[in-house]
């Protein structure tokens, strides 16, 4: 998948050599297309954001308390963000599958890993926008402690979690999209794989959401998230080619 150079044309063939397009040029073209389609349709990010805010409102009233702290706050935040992310995961490849984008991509002389990278970056961008809406809403509706002091480490933890969600979400969405039960299969495959991210993310931010918050989350949880991202990043990149094949 790393072949970004022009492949040599077989000796018995005639005509001019096929020049493959560079990996990052392809990623750029795909990413631009993804963002354009989302800007035109607004199918993913507004839905994800609305879901997260609505869930916080439901928690606000269902828990019958003005605010939450510590483990409970961390758990509510991460679980809500992951369920909101599922909405984006489910939509990630729909336009490609329904409108022939897969075929068009497969006919082009490009590195197929470019699609994995572009889709992961797209989902990552969606998650960042989601969190720009959801985290302030969470602080406003539920969080009993000031968000400001917790923010730097919260951003680091969310970033590590987002990378994992984006990588796993892209892999799972690519597996599910060509099946008839894609809306069901995506979440069923993704949620178990997201569990370590919920555990690591919630444990890491839990100390940040107490009155006398500690200055930094435990390094082991950040390392756990980072390692999970790395392992799944490599697995997904290696497998993605096969998922696009017939």
């Amino acid at each position: 998948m790393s072949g970004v150079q022009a492949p040599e044309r077989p000796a018995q063939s005639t005509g001019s050599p096929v020049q493959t397009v560079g990996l990052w040029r392809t990623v750029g073209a795909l990413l631009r297309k993804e963002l354009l389609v989302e800007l035109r349709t607004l199918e993913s990010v507004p839905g994800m954001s609305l879901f997260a805010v609505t869930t916080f409102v439901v928690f606000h009233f269902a828990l019958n308390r003005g605010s939450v702290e510590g483990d409970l706050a961390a758990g509510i935040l991460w679980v809500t963000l992951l369920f909101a992310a599922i909405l984006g995961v489910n939509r990630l490849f729909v336009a490609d599958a329904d409108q022939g984008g897969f075929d068009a991509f497969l006919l082009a002389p490009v590195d197929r890993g470019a699609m994995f990278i572009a889709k992961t970056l797209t989902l990552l961008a969606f998650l960042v926008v989601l969190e720009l809406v959801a985290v302030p809403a969470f602080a406003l509706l539920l969080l009993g402690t000031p968000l400001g002091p917790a923010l730097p480490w919260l951003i680091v933890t969310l970033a590590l979690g987002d990378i994992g969600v984006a990588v796993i979400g892209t892999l799972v969405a690519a597996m599910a999209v060509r099946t008839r039960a894609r809306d069901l299969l995506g979440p069923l495959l993704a949620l178990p794989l997201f569990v370590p991210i919920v555990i690591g993310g919630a444990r890491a931010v839990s100390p940040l959401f107490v009155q006398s918050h500690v200055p930094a989350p435990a390094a082991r949880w950040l390392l756990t998230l980072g390692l999970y991202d790395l392992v799944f990043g490599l697995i997904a990149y290696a497998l993605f080619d096969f998922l696009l094949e017939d």
Partner: protein
Amino acid sequence: MAALEVEGLTRHYGEREALGDVSLSLAEGQTLVVFGPNGAGKTTLLRVLATLLRPHAGSVRVLGSSLPEEAWAVRGRVGMLGHEPLLYRELTARENLRFHARLHGVGEERVQELLDAVAMGARANEPLRTLSRGMVQRVAVARAVLHDPELLLLDEPHSNLDPAAIELVAPLIGAGSDGGEETRSPRRRTRVICSHDPGGDIARADVVLGLRAGRQALLRAAADVEVEEIAELYR
């Protein structure tokens, strides 16, 4: 030199055999027209030749490369116009063509050239979902030939097109300069065309393939084929 060499090609969808034991050879620059009723395996044949489907048995060589092992060497040299336009409905014609141009390493000027060639310059900045099916088909033709492919795979290329539009796209999906139809490249282009119009399309063909229920029912030089034989495939 053969552009296509197919021997005993078989392809299944689950238990159903979509193509069985199809063999053919087509020289570079020639046009193969494939006839057959719906479900005969025409589209499956095109998708195998385009590297989008793997053959389940038999051997397939496209432009000198063996499929599926050397599919990477074929991509970018094939243009495909299928039932689906392979375009994003929310993007404009220009954005769609720009996207495909980037994937094929083709310059921006080619996009404008093709928009003009299919008379879509005036509607180029409107989302595809707002265009008629005929207009979308014209953009799809432009998309298929954007990278000036050596092999064109055309599945009923005139569907949704009115007579004026058919005339408009004819130079783009034509055989090449030798055939009296203009393309950018000086060489003749190899074409495989799926059709239901024996009256019109036998004249374009060098070789005719007839398929029935996934099986090869006819393979002959076009000059030796009678329209009545094609009609027989549909009975």
